[in-house]
């Protein structure tokens, strides 16, 4: 494992991010903008599932309208995140907040996947236009919000504990 992480840190991409003056800030900026677009738009699907906002629209309409935005944001975030990881692979891997962030990210993915495959695929006809969807749907929406907030908080804590600038 350590050998893989060290190999990653010596790839050309990693060295570019570590050594060029604007490489690191540029990739972090892309990462934050990706976060803004993805979580900022996904939030409205979650709020609709909770029955808090956009109640006049079907859940599926909110999802379909926003999906291109949050998937584009996720793509930006994952590509820039992977690039950042190569540059600081060993210290990131050793960082508690990085691990918490990955766990929250994984759980957010599992929550979305289970909701889609198990819940939405079979029962969405019953609650798609309901102002206040059933408890299972609301719980999935709330879980998504909590996990993504966890990803954001862990990500911020990680950057403060890894690089130790104030």
């Amino acid at each position, binding site marked *: 494992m350590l050998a893989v992480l060290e190999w990653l840190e010596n790839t050309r991409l990693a060295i570019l991010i570590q050594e060029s003056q604007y490489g*690191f*800030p540029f990739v*972090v*900026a892309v990462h*934050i*903008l990706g*976060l*803004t*677009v993805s*979580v*900022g*738009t996904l*939030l*409205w699907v979650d*709020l609709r599932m909770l029955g*808090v*906002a*956009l109640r*006049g*629209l079907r859940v599926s*309409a*909110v999802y379909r*309208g*926003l999906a291109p*935005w949050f998937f584009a944001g996720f793509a930006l975030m994952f590509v820039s995140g992977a690039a950042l990881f190569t540059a600081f692979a060993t210290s990131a891997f050793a960082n508690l907040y990085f691990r918490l962030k990955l766990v929250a990210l994984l759980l957010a993915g599992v929550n979305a996947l289970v909701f889609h495959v198990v819940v939405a695929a079979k029962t969405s006809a019953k609650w798609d236009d309901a102002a206040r969807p059933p408890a299972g749907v609301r719980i999935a929406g709330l879980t998504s919000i909590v996990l993504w*907030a966890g990803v*954001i*908080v862990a990500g*911020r*804590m990680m950057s*403060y*504990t890894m690089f*130790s600038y*104030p």
Partner: protein
Amino acid sequence: MFTWLETTSVATTVASSIAITASLSAIHLIGYTLATGGALAANLRLLGVLFRGRPAIEVVGPATRAIALGLTISLVTGVLLFSARASDASANGAFRLKMVLLIAAGVFHFTVSRGSAARASVSAQRARGAGAIGLALWLGLAVAACVFILLE
């Protein structure tokens, strides 16, 4: 004034603890995501890109509440973070630009954008214009914020 702010007990408490600074920064980013997510939804609706089938106010209304809550969270945590390094931050060009764009984006949203959504008499063209300007202001704010934290 900025050097005085740095000597207050709130500022020294924030400055002395990485844990407090990091936590405030995390909450600051949550507020930012909420506000900018609201701005994205509102302005994409005004542009006619999203949810065209529903009246603009049905999207801009809740988005405005998200912006208000997000900005409140970011302002409170932002002031605390600012207090700890008021003189450095206030002298920073990116920080000044961020403040100007914050005020511009906020004022534009709560006057023009919300107004365009609330009145049925507003032409589609004017609504699209408001959406484009709003989107540019919020995007500019996000970029200035990134430049400030990364290149100071």
